[in-house]
């Protein structure tokens, strides 16, 4: 792509496609950030061969979980994470799916790769000054970096990223929290464990900062 932000990097990236929405934005942003090749797929061969994996997600969690399981994406993800030790980036509902359960759709069991749960932001969410906060949490909010991580490289603490969600992650192990955002409650905006980085916001919609995070992901060897 002529307008890419630097030379090709990061080898091949597989964006896991479980049929729940448009993944071209994610793929385009990865290409723009300099990925050598990006494939949107749920083909086990493609995922096995990829150097790194992106696990996105939009929509309602029950339908997402059903498709993830039906297509065997859970096993493919597990393989990439723990057998092949590839760098994995989970985005939005992709992040939420990693936890043990979600309150959405009346309660849905999730993958349980990370301890903790996904909670509703609430029907009467209030800010510090008592002001009513709208749900979904939609727009650009400031992410506080809880600890250094290669994916934060070159991104200032407090940089705004684009969020759009009504449910939020609360990890059981607070040491995994790499970034947080305040919106009536403290939301886990980023979780990191070994070769896994998961974000509630949308880097593919977060302009310069988002593209930088994707570029960092492409340069990441999976250690931290």
């Amino acid at each position: 792509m002529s307008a890419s932000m630097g030379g090709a990097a990061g080898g091949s990236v597989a964006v896991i496609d479980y049929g729940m929405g448009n993944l071209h934005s994610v793929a385009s942003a990865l290409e723009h950030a300099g990925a050598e090749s990006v494939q949107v797929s749920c083909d086990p061969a493609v995922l096995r061969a990829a150097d790194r994996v992106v696990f996105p997600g939009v929509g309602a969690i029950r339908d997402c979980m059903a498709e993830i399981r039906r297509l065997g994406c859970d096993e493919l993800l597990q393989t990439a994470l723990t057998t092949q030790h590839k760098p994995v980036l989970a985005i939005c509902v992709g992040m939420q799916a990693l936890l043990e359960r979600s309150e959405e759709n009346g309660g849905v069991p999730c993958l349980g790769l990370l301890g903790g749960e996904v909670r509703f932001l609430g029907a009467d969410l209030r800010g510090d000054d008592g002001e009513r906060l709208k749900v979904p949490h939609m727009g650009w909010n400031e992410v506080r970096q809880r600890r250094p991580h290669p994916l934060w490289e070159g991104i200032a603490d407090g940089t705004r990223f684009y969020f759009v969600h009504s449910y939020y992650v609360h990890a059981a192990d607070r040491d995994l929290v790499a970034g947080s955002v305040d919106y009536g409650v403290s939301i886990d905006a980023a979780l990191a464990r070994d070769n896994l980085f998961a974000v509630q916001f949308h880097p593919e919609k977060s302009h310069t900062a988002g593209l930088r995070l994707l570029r960092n992901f492409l340069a990441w060897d999976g250690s931290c």
Partner: protein
Amino acid sequence: MGLARRIIPCLDVDNGRVVKGVNFVDIRDAGDPVEIARRYNEAGADEITFLDITASHEARETTVHTVEAIAREVFIPLTVGGGIRSLADIRTMLNAGADKVSINTAAIREPQLVADASARFGAQCIVVAIDAKRVQDRDGAPRWEIFTHGGRRPTGIDALAWARRMAELGAGEILLTSMDRDGTRDGFDLALTRAVSDAVPVPVIASGGVGNLEHLAEGVLEGGADAVLAASIFHFGEYSIAEAKAHMAGRGIEVRL
């Protein structure tokens, strides 16, 4: 620290061309929606809304290609509205790269579409557009009614009740346009904006009537809007997005700088 109020430039697009064009310094093609979207993206717009006013159904193919081209190089949220009538239309636009679709007349004709779309694609991508006009109640109290066909056709539907119903059915956001103010440059209908914003739990985008930067600030401070949408003040180069944000920040509004 907190969520920023959003500034959203809106492009009216007819058959793949931006209506009336956009007056930026050094712009090569003032009618090219892709170039204009790219320029707004670089200028710091928080989102872009793309309103398709193409009349013929056949020409909609053009719109899909335009959305695809924008989505390939603009990495901020893109909303597409105009002529969205079915789940298939929504899927087409989302697959083309839109992040949200805005539903207007079809929601009035068939409210269940909003519920079905929200269940299928998620509330986060379903915006319901409401075109409201002030009318007098029998007892003289002001209220607002939904109008269609560019503000010409009344529906008898109360705007506040409608906004609440749309949010209940699964709209993730309301795009609220005052048909009294649209095109006047007199500022938003702040009473309408405040009433709708207080009535619904979801974010509200104020639209219609912006003529200067203070109007944008009023929309947030007095109207309680979560986002402000404007077309002409940005298109004709009177104000830049950066000037708008600086003005809003100066009025104590949280913005993404």
